[in-house]
């Protein structure tokens, strides 16, 4: 279980590190977005489980395999949420910032990023759930890297300890539930302003 959780934390960190900057670039520079559109639309539908054999050949059966595959799956929701967040950015906010002397970089960091934050947190939430699913799948199918998936697989084989199999499944479910809950709380706490629509009058 520790192996899975640790891997998941690494997956989330890597996915955020890759998808958010990439999303900011793609979302704010239309030319780059159009240029990379074909590549992204080709890569996105490939299920990460289908990449398992390839990843095993290239990376072996260590934890890097499951982490790589989970990051691959987790990047997409985060990337698209970030891009959409920039599409939703109010042009008047940008104009306001520009009028008060903010250059492009300042607009990006002090206007675009904070305004995108609620979407990004939603993206992280989705990424975490997807990441967990892929991690456990790879643990189940490949083995050798510990974690809940391998625990379930081992319990199933041989003596067929169905109680342990179920226990593993329940633990996986509880982790998923807690993750989602934690992110929802973070969202309410940090970006509560975004759920307040309309005017207080």
């Amino acid at each position: 279980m520790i192996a899975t959780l640790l891997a998941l934390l690494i997956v989330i960190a890597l996915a955020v590190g890759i998808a958010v900057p990439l999303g900011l670039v793609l979302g704010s520079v239309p030319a780059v977005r159009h240029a990379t559109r074909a590549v992204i639309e080709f890569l996105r539908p490939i299920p990460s489980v289908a990449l398992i054999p390839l990843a095993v050949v290239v990376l072996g059966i260590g934890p890097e395999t499951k982490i790589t595959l989970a990051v691959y799956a987790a990047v997409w929701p985060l990337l698209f949420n970030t891009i959409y967040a920039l599409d939703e950015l109010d042009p008047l906010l940008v104009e306001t910032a520009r009028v008060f002397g903010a250059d492009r970089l300042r607009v990006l960091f002090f206007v675009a990023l904070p305004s995108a934050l609620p979407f990004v947190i939603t993206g992280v939430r989705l990424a975490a759930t997807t990441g967990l699913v892929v991690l456990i799948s790879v643990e189940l199918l490949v083995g050798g890297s510990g974690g809940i998936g391998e625990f379930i697989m081992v319990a199933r084989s041989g003596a067929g300890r169905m109680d342990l199999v179920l226990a593993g499944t329940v633990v996986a479910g509880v982790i998923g539930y807690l993750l989602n809950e934690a992110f929802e709380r973070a969202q309410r706490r940090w970006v509560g302003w975004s759920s307040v629509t309309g005017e207080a009058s």
Partner: protein
Amino acid sequence: MTTMLEVADLGHTYQAKSGAHTAIDGLSFRVDAGELVCVVGPSGCGKSTLLRTISGLIRPTRGDVTLHGDAVRGVPEDLAVVFQDYSRSLFPWLSVQRNVEFPLKRTLKRAERRARAAEALDQVGLSGAGGKYPWQLSGGMQQRVAIARALAYRPALLLMDEPFASVDAQTRFELEDLLLKVKREHDTTVVVVTHDIDESVYLGDRVLVLTKSPASVVADLPVNLPAVRDQITTREAEEFVELRAEVARLLNVGKTEAITAKRRSDEAQAAKWVAAERAANRERADREAVAD
């Protein structure tokens, strides 16, 4: 008096797939330092385009904007804008205090920023609200925050784009007086774009009247009202009443002509009927005379 803003032969044409649209054309005027000039025009006449070119947000297709002697290329350093839509121009994730500090981030240290923001908030009567968030305030208060933010920046020129169009009448009066007070105290140069005739006369040292799109200046009227104005007595003053009628006439030139034309044709029609009736009467009278 030194000239703060000079707009010379300004024109802007938007290029779109559906064709070109000329929003302003051959606009020229100047604003002296310390003056408050109101720009009124019919809705959709290109007022916002004018404001955006002055603030350097868009580059005009022809003509020049000069701010205290420097040609405007890009957004000038010492210019602040208050937009109509306060709910969209305040940063929702920043507290009121931090919203006001936002423009000062580049130039001032934290302690100085704080002091400036507190001072500006105090000026607009929001000294206690610094820790609140914009969405916790009423519309009028949000616009006060936007004004405080502009003031804290200490701009050479304050541009306002229909600043009081989205608040209720009572709040609008309060904010108008607030603007006049602040302007008197700081000797700020202000350009207010509005479509409200009364407001333009009430606020302005001068009123610029624009034509329909493509906008150009049709009249430049000085407002000879005392510097200290009052929502009730000023609005009753003869000068105020005359001036607002004058502005209204200038804005309605097209409409008045149409009305006059219609009335003329109505009158002609009526005259024909009258003539016809008279002729009929005469005929009857003649017949009766014959019968006699």
